[in-house]
């Protein structure tokens, strides 16, 4: 297993270099350092001299990939790509272009609010989805199953924005039970995360229940389930002891892949609930053409993706002893 993990980590290096090059190229295809300077310096009195000065001060006066004017290795090292990207590999994200603040500090600061929403939403959503899908599977081929499926399709078809605005309207404006938006630390956090967590879980029920129902129905059709029933086990015992256990591999695949992205936050949820998390940070950076932050967040996403894939592989060995990594 250790050898496998080391091998996968080594594979990750070219992937991350590729991601770095790609995000750099994509960003500078649509933006020039001049554009960045103009956006960051503001709307008024942005003179050519001010743009040149900003570029000089922030290291964007260099060529992008290749410095023909330099000699030797400086042709590569004296470029925007090298000076801005190499330190990412040791997770030194540098400073934001817009505000000059440390990106690492911001990530550390914002990761907790993102997780405060994402983790409970994920856990609650998972529990509700699995429970409901087991119940639907229990009532398979009845009118309850059919209506549940119709309901799932309906809830899946509704935009996430509707859930958010509808939820805020119902619970905060009409019933006045929770704040519309905001955030606090410590115990004060509870009243702010309650609504987004419930909305997040409810919004995912349609897709989740349909997905897990299919998995459970596939398992229910197997011979060993028939054997369990023949042994005289109740339907509940069959479902929770045998079906659920044997459905764990596909469930884990989805779950473990999702876990790393919980750190990334949700753009929509954080914007509408004013959660000071990483989703909002990324959105601000994209709007403000802050290359340093965009690059750091995409890089972080790539690292989390690689980590998610490795974790998924490892989790297979935990739930299915037949799987061996090598």
């Amino acid at each position, binding site marked *: 297993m250790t050898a496998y993990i080391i091998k996968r980590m080594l594979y990750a290096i070219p992937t991350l270099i590729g991601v770095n090059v790609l995000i750099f190229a994509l960003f500078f295809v649509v933006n020039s350092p*001049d554009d960045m300077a103009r956006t960051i310096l*503001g709307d008024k009195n942005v003179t*050519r001299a001010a743009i040149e000065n900003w570029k000089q*001060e922030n290291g964007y006066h260099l060529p992008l990939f290749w410095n023909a004017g330099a000699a030797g290795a400086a042709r590569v090292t004296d470029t925007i790509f090298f000076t801005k990207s190499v330190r990412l590999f040791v997770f030194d994200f540098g400073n934001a272009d817009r*505000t000059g603040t440390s990106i690492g500090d911001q990530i550390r600061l914002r990761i907790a*609010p993102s997780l405060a929403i994402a983790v409970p939403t994920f856990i609650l959503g998972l529990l509700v989805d699995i429970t409901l899908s087991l119940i639907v599977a229990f009532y398979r081929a009845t009118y309850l199953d059919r209506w549940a499926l119709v309901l799932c399709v309906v809830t899946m078809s509704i935009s996430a924005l509707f859930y958010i605005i509808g939820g805020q309207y119902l619970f*905060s404006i009409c019933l006045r039970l929770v704040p519309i*938006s905001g955030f606090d630390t410590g115990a004060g956090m509870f009243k702010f995360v309650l609504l987004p967590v419930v909305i997040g879980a409810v919004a995912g029920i349609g897709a989740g229940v349909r997905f897990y129902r299919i998995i459970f129905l596939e398992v229910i059709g197997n011979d060993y389930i028939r054997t369990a029933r023949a042994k005289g086990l109740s339907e509940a015992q069959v479902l929770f002891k045998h079906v659920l256990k044997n459905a764990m591999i596909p469930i884990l695949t989805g779950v473990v892949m999702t876990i790393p992205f919980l750190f990334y936050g949700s753009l929509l949820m954080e914007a*509408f609930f*004013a959660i000071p998390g990483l989703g909002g940070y990324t959105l601000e950076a994209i709007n403000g053409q802050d290359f340093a932050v965009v690059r750091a967040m995409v890089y972080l996403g790539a690292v989390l993706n690689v980590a998610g894939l490795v974790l998924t592989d490892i989790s297979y060995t935990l739930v299915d002893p037949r799987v061996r990594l090598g």
Partner: protein
Amino acid sequence: MRIGTHRQTALCSVKIFAAVLAAVMLSGACGSPPNNPHRAEDRSANYYYDTFMAPPKHFDPVRSYSTDEAVFVCQVYEPPLQFHFLKRPYELEPLTAARMPNISERIIGGAVHTVYEITIKPGILYQPHPCFARDERAALRYHHLAPDDVKGFLQAGDFEHSGTRELMAADYVLQLKRMADPRLNCPILSTMAKYILGLDDYAAGLRSRLQAERAARRAAAGLLYNQNEDEKQNPVRIDYDGIAFPGVELVDRYTYRIIIKGRYPQIKYWLAMPFFAPVPQEALDFYDQAALIERGITLDRFPVGTGAYYIESYQPNRQIVLARNPNYRFEAYPAEGEPGDAGLGLLRDAGRPLPFIDRAVYMLEPEYITSWNKFLQGYYDTSGITSDNFDQAVTMTERGVGLTEQLQDQGIGLITAATASVWYFGFNMRDSVVGGLDEKQCKLRRAISIAIDIEEDLDIFSNGRGIPAHGLVPPGIFGYLEGREGVNPYVYDWDERQRRPVRKSIEEARRLLAEAGYPNGIGPDGRQLTISFDNMMTGSSYAPYLNWILKQFRRLNINLVINTTDYNRFQDKINSGNFQFFNWGWNADYPDPENFLFLLYGPNARHGQGVENSTGYVSERYDELFRRMETMDDTPERLALIKQMHAVLQHDAPLHFGYFPVGYSLYHQWYYNAKPNLMGRNTLKYKRIDGELRERLRREWNRPLIWPLVLSGLVLLLACVPAAVLVWKREHRP
């Protein structure tokens, strides 16, 4: 699952549900409604609550230039002058200055220069700040910090000790020198370098010293030198006093002088902006420590000022809190204003010491809809109005603009004020089709100006929140002409019966178009006239507006080609002169007609160099009038010149003047002294809150409703009955 287990689970769920309900009801009973986004313990406090939509970029007064930053920066930093809170037209008065600047003339190098001598009041103290903290031996306590000393620190307020000191004229001189520091990117450096003696040379001197230091470091470090990282660990210190700067003189502890090349009376307005506020050397030395830079604790985030407030908590991703400066000197609420202020209750607090509010809490609200709803619930004290909620807030009555019944019932007040800005359409005066000063080309532009019905534009797209412009100077600024006198006679006729201007008919526009050589929009070559329209209206929400513009041109049978780009590309195009017709705006820096009329001054029309005169309009007559008007005081002679300048512009029509936007804002009944001041941004100190009334009304408006939730729970339980029956039947199948 056994039925008994079902029962237990159901019982458990009911208990949890009851516990949540009890918690909600208890919180309501305790006085703070459960939907209150603020801390319950602050419910009756003398706090002001407002929002910000995006984290501010800069709090360093030499860098900060946007209105969303000014909300904070202007409460902390104090330039020598300020705009009177109540008087209109806008009037300057001393803030930290003991009196208005003493202006004299001096001959330097054979040329006349103007000297502004400013004396500040003695005894003004800075806010408590760790940069001033001293130890038992009177040495500065926090000026030799190691990384471990600030481990876990997030804010300047995390230091245990703080201190203060008296404001000195040297602090103002230091700030003037900081304007030239190339690392700070002062946005007004190029403007000030035109007027302050020697500022450009001083900036060049600082730049060359910085470059020499960097070159030396690069040579020493070798190939892997990273300037940003190196300067974080070992900041470059430039000796500001090591280079001569003749434009500023320190006279004594409380007096300094600014020397202006020639005459530039508008400098007085700049003296009321944070660019000219004091910065103490102790703050620069304190924040220049690697340990603090590493932690992001910088002057750009944690200001040090003498203002009525200081930044108590800076969390740009959540909230920014301003707290009353305990060292603030005595300053009284003004005792006089403009006529009518007394009737509006704006003089009730006359003579009382400022500030009134203890804390101002600004919460990050990226989405307007949430901040609007919180305002209606009473959790924010003031709010703007957008097109989305305009109908919910405002109705048009016979007497003009009014609030809807819902808002009136809540006791909400409305303020409207024309902003010191203009939103216009411009022509490229160097373009062979729409440009030029030939009479035919002027007629073409006039025809287009008539065809674009700005009144309809305002009605459809801005809910009437604007005043059609007949010139460049907006209401409230010297030079704005009302009534018949101010009408643009080439686009409007004066209707004596209605006592208002009426746009000329489209037939008149067509006649002008024909006289311009395009009868029915067809040019001399027999082809339809085509004009390109450059704009920055990206996004589908602008589609109706662009369609409306197309319709306006279609009325003249002109083919309009719409070129929509992002703001950067748009600026590039305008800057390089690569456009025909465009749409842009201008927000004034100060309330002087010069700050609008310079937009068409010939020498400012240098495409390729970051233009102010983006149309490229050059008129000898206009330029000559501008030069005479530019440096005059607000006298009848100046007004006469402005009238003549407008007459030239109205004839030549380099712009469709567009409109002056009108800002609408709302405030709750517990918020006092709500008078818009579009120039002075340091107005928080004049505002007053009745915290008790606010809390009472908040509780009244936000009583939680529990019964719909109970009912929903019961319905859900009933819905489970058929399922339970099904289970029972299955489990008891024979």
